[in-house]
């Protein structure tokens, strides 16, 4: 049976029409994965010697074990944002003679083979080898490594439980941040010292291997809890049919001042407010806006002026990047209808431009309090905002014409809790790194004021040639019209 499921997925992957188009992103993800593997390998092999050198008195084995708590938290956070339960379209399988248990076991079992579970091995195994080479007791080290592997798997299944819980709330990512934050705080202020609890626990297991049963039992418990959640969601009325929610109407008549753009702007606003997929990115705006607070309170960063541009682009352009990268896929569900309607394509795209431009202005205004950290920061943010409106908005819309992936706004695949993956984060990189590079370079060569002027200048040029640029972008969209219609009418 597992062979059949694997076969289905293989076909799903290779038979989806435009998978070749996404190969660049896959390569990029692969490189990112390799980078992570290299870092972990480096950590695994080098850690022993680094600790030996930095803290000659202490035992590297104990030091590493005492930090496992922090690693666990970081791992959980990373998983939450990047790892998804393997998706499988279950509806066609439900009426076939396949036991529900098999489907669930398969999905859960497959999740155990995730990259995120193998990654830690690249640190654990070399570190264990180094330990054994340095005359640590072989069986102790092996049990230690085994414990860590079990803990990795515990994290794997814990993550899915957290994801399924947070999928029920509208502020989907808040629970994980609250949980991780409070655990960290309790530990940091030594109210409850989880880090020493966990390291003592691991040490106890290495001293007395029978205690290994404890993490194993936790793992089994989590597996069965996941099993229960998933099995419940395997009924047509829960996983396949959406809950009927009462339609809410909002007064959007203020958009009428935009004339012929108004119908599309209203449509976009409703799209954002009424679909799970888009709604879940809204709370992230707060993070984008407050992003600067991770850096500016520390004097180190306040001297790194090139960072100002990066943070400015990120915090004023957060909506732009998140919304813009899925143009026109947001409308993929009814793209054929749009294409048979009487409107000018340029209007459709301009309404999206307007929306993104407005979001930049609003986010910039909300970010004015950053002036607390110095006028230079506000000035750099202002330049970044102009750059966002003038350059990034056009770039991201141009990029959208290569979009060939349908978005399911209202129908979530049965096990898909988040809808955002690593891909989404990677696309933002060129949009942020390029202005950061330009800003950093001119800042270094010619000074801060010139760097600000260059960003503003580039943004203004973009705004000045807006109509011209829109014509080019529109032509590109029209040229790929048939391809988009074809791709958007395919699932997966």
């Amino acid at each position, binding site marked *: 049976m597992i062979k059949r499921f694997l076969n289905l997925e293989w076909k799903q992957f290779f038979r989806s029409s435009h998978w070749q188009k996404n190969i660049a992103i896959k390569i990029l993800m692969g490189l990112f994965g390799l980078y992570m593997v290299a870092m972990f390998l480096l950590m695994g092999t080098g850690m022993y010697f680094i600790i030996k050198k930095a803290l000659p008195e202490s035992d590297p084995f104990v030091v590493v074990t005492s930090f496992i708590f922090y690693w666990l938290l970081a791992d959980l956070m990373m998983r939450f944002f990047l790892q998804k339960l393997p998706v499988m379209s279950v509806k066609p399988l439900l009426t076939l003679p396949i036991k529900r248990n098999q489907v669930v076991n398969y999905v859960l079992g497959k999740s155990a083979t995730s990259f995120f579970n193998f990654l830690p091995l690249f640190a654990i195994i070399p570190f264990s080898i180094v330990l054994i080479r340095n005359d640590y007791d072989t069986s102790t080290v092996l049990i230690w490594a085994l414990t860590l592997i079990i803990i990795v798997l515990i994290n794997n299944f814990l993550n899915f439980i957290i994801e399924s819980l947070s999928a029920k709330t509208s502020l989907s990512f808040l629970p994980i941040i609250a949980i991780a934050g409070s655990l960290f705080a309790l530990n940091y202020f030594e109210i409850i010292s989880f880090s020493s609890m966990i390291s003592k626990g691991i040490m106890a297991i290495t001293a007395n291997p029978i205690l290994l049963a404890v993490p194993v039992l936790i793992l089994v418990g989590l597996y069965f809890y996941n099993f229960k959640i998933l099995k419940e969601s395997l009924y047509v009325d829960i996983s396949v049919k959406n809950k009927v929610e*009462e339609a809410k109407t909002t007064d959007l008549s203020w958009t009428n001042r935009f004339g012929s753009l108004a119908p599309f702007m209203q449509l976009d606003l409703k799209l954002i407010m009424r679909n799970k997929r888009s709604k879940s990115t809204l709370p992230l705006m707060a993070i984008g806006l407050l992003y600067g607070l991770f850096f500016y309170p520390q004097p180190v960063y306040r001297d790194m002026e090139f960072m100002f541009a990066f943070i400015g682009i990120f915090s004023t352009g957060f909506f732009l990047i998140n919304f813009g990268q899925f143009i026109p896929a947001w409308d993929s569900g*009814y793209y*054929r209808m749009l*294409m*048979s*309607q*009487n409107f000018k394509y340029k209007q459709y795209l301009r309404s999206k431009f307007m929306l993104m431009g407005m979001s930049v202005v609003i986010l910039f205004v909300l970010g004015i309090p950053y002036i607390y950290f110095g006028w230079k920061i506000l000035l750099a943010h202002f330049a970044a905002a102009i750059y966002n409106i003038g350059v990034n908005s056009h770039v991201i819309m141009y990029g959208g014409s290569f979009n060939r992936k349908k978005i399911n706004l*209202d129908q979530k695949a049965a096990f898909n809790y988040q809808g955002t993956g690593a891909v989404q984060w990677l696309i933002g990189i060129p949009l942020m790194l390029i202005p950061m590079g330009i800003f950093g370079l001119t800042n270094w060569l010619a000074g801060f004021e010139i760097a600000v002027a260059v960003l503003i200048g580039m943004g203004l040029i973009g705004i000045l040639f807006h109509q011209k640029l829109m014509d080019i972008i529109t032509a590109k969209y029209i040229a790929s019209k*048939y391809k988009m219609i074809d791709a958007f*009418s395919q699932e997966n």
Partner: protein
Amino acid sequence: MIQVKDISKTYAGTTVLTINDLDIPKGQSFGLVGNNGAGKTTFFNLLLDLIKPTTGRIESNRIQVDKSEDWKSFTGSFIDESFLIGYLTPEEYFYFIGDLRGQNKADVDAFVKQFDDIFNGEILGKKKYLRDLSKGNQKKAGIVAALIGNPEVVILDEPFANLDPTTQIRLKQMLKTLVDNKDITVLISSHDLGHVTEVCERIVVLDKGNVIKDIKTSEATLKELEAHFAL
């Protein structure tokens, strides 16, 4: 109104539609029948410029549909549920389509009101999004939306499928009134030979992408079609 010249559509070496010459005069009610894979939806997709013809051209009111977009202002269509915007209520959807066709809210309200008996109280004012309506009700909303803004060409793909018997009969009545208006050219495809012969004055049978019958509807048409498809 609609001239089809040497049109063909080929996917990876397989030709799915070839129509050498087809002329649909203004005001005609045109029915398209054929088994699955006969090319009905392909033809409608070509008419709406949703796919690119491999050869030939289609002109609607002397406008070549894959060259200019001007045909959009007088063409209303409903192919399938993917023509609906799931997160809008039916009213909002009608207003949106109305907006694109230069109809204000009052126009749309007045227009939609005449379909009350088809809607059967299940569509308007229900505070439901289109995605939460049943397939049949979605179809009703889509068909009505296709008629907003006095289109001169109306294209409906399988309008009777998925509808309950009462609605099928009401929709048939509605389409009959529509085709009585000699300014509107109506194109319908259907698997229901009875309905389509009642509504349309001309029936074209497609088979494997070719026109094999072109009939002016008469008393005998239904019998003829049934005999044809019984083989």
